[in-house]
């Protein structure tokens, strides 16, 4: 292989070295475009705010998985557990005690994060398929508990009777979903910023190291268990917030929030959007929601087949999902313009 100097610089200097990390952390155009469009959708699609809000909540859920899967390379087949724990925490709180949405949100994050921290003590000790199996087991157990603990969760019928009080004591959640949209948008955007900060920290770099070569990490002095446990806990807390948001904006929780299907669909959404760049999670969630809607219009029973096929094709072609394709297309166009 011929050594080609990095674009625009013949030699590396301290300046270029520092600039590399600034570049890595810089806002990419697809991120800006996504958030501008998401905000604009409030005005463009006023009739679909409820659906858009749900897609964005799914987006936060997918982003939480991206931290584990896209960054640290840890697959999870039970991530719905934490989404569900967050949802039921906020739901039960609002039904039985306290309906303040922000309190529910924080409680959902705390309980889900705590559950994640406990599970992480098991998961971080394992690798590969054993890890996958345990996450799958965690998901199934949580589903079973919610299913059987009828008096608390409503079991199969779902949780009803939440009494959500107005946001900040002033803004009542309306039927058009305006307040729900703004509330969710702000929460999700703030958490997105936090996730961005995290992946561009030394901790985030360590997560990438785990993904790229976990065997090398101990040789650098990094035991990875602390990193994995922290990543799992944070990821679970974020998923919990997403669950709590869904519960609060829909004021109802179906048992399916904990289902295996949800754990898988969030994986698929992530792959569709593109892993390991955060915004891919948000975009993938939107794309998945739209695609599911369209496919189930055509064929309600078998749309899963096409979703599975898309997953297989993306993995086999190694395109890197929507963000990967976008990026390559834009790079190619840019190169052509330059020439």
């Amino acid at each position: 292989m011929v050594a080609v100097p990095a674009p625009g610089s013949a030699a590396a200097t301290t300046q270029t070295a520092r600039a590399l990390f600034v570049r890595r952390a810089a806002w990419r155009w697809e991120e800006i475009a996504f958030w501008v469009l998401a905000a604009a959708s409030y005005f463009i699609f006023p009739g679909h705010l409820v659906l858009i809000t749900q897609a964005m909540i799914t987006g936060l859920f997918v982003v939480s998985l991206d931290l584990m899967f896209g960054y640290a390379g840890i697959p999870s087949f039970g991530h719905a557990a934490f989404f569900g724990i967050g949802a039921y925490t906020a739901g039960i709180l609002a039904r039985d005690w306290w309906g303040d949405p922000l309190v529910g949100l924080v409680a959902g994050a705390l309980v889900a994060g705590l559950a994640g921290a406990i599970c992480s003590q098991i998961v971080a000790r394992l690798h590969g398929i054993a890890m996958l199996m345990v996450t799958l087991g965690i998901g199934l157990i949580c589903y079973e508990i919610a299913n059987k603990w009828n008096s608390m969760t409503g079991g199969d019928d779902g949780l009803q009777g939440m009494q959500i009080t107005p946001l900040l004591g002033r803004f009542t959640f309306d039927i058009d979903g305006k307040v729900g949209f703004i509330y969710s948008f702000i929460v999700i955007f703030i958490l997105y910023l936090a996730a961005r900060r995290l992946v561009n920290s030394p901790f985030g770099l360590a997560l990438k190291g785990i993904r790229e070569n976990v065997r090398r990490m101990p040789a650098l002095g990094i035991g990875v268990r602390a990193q994995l446990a922290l990543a799992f806990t944070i990821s679970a807390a974020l998923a919990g917030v997403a669950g709590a948001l869904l519960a609060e904006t829909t004021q109802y929780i179906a048992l399916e929030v904990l289902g295996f299907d949800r754990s898988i669909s969030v994986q698929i959404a992530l792959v569709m959007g593109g892993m390991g760049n955060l915004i891919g999670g948000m975009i993938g969630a939107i794309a998945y929601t739209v695609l599911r809607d369209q496919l189930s219009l055509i064929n309600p029973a078998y749309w899963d087949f096409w979703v599975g096929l898309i997953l297989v094709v993306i993995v086999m072609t190694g395109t890197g999902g929507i963000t990967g394709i976008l990026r390559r297309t834009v790079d190619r166009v840019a190169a052509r313009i330059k020439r």
Partner: protein
Amino acid sequence: MADFINILGAGVAYGVLLFLMAGGLSVTMGMMGFANLAHGSLSMLGGYIVVMLMNWYGWPFFGALPMAAIGAAVAGVLVERTIFKRFYWGNQLDQVLLTIGIVTMTVAGATFVWGAVPPAVHVPEFLEGRVHAGFFDIGSYRLFLIVFGGALTAAMVLGLEFTSFGAKIRAAVDNRRMTVSCGINIDRLFMLAFAIGSALAGLGGGLAIYLVGLDPSFPVKYLVYLLVVVVVGGMGSIRGTLAASLALGICDVVGKYYIPYLGAFIIYGITVAILMVRPNGLFGRGGH
């Protein structure tokens, strides 16, 4: 006491089924470094082949069983040659995503072809009753499973232990680099191992449906069981897989009988406890 022994019998029969369904998975993971989460889809295929041949074309049960094995082997090799082959020793995340995509497709595909309703499953009349001997009382079909499955398992273990093909497979599990340098055609070896593993999965599926039923979500329902068996047994270890299958089968049946509320939790609890002590499974080799 008598009760317990009979439940134990049911557990062993279930364990044998799990072993047939998981054995091939353990070998592909140990030998090819390939995590085939779609292994259960082959069992489902075997199940539907048996149902189809019997219910639609009036085949006898024992005529349909071999076809289940053959059908699953053909399907397995087809996918192995066209898709899986490129992912051997590759990134495990890709393997997981790829095969879970295939699971999703097969579940939807089975719903399309065979419908979501569980089909009626029949076995020959002489296997439908129960066998009594003293305080021993067991369903004939379960007894048949234990005997037939036991013989098959013994054949497998002996085949791995005493044939040159088995020696090659064991060598490949132990050390791939060395196997290649010994001039063994590893590509063909993989294909054969995959075919046999798939055939066993298909056969296991064909045998399982009378006891556990069949519907398109079969591969998903049994995914966690397969993973538990492989992980607890230690990848690539046939003895480990056998031990884990039997243990899981017995724990599951016994647990669900005596403590129905805690049935599933006991299994996960035990599994996690074992993994905490031995992260590479009971019979897995420590350190890589």
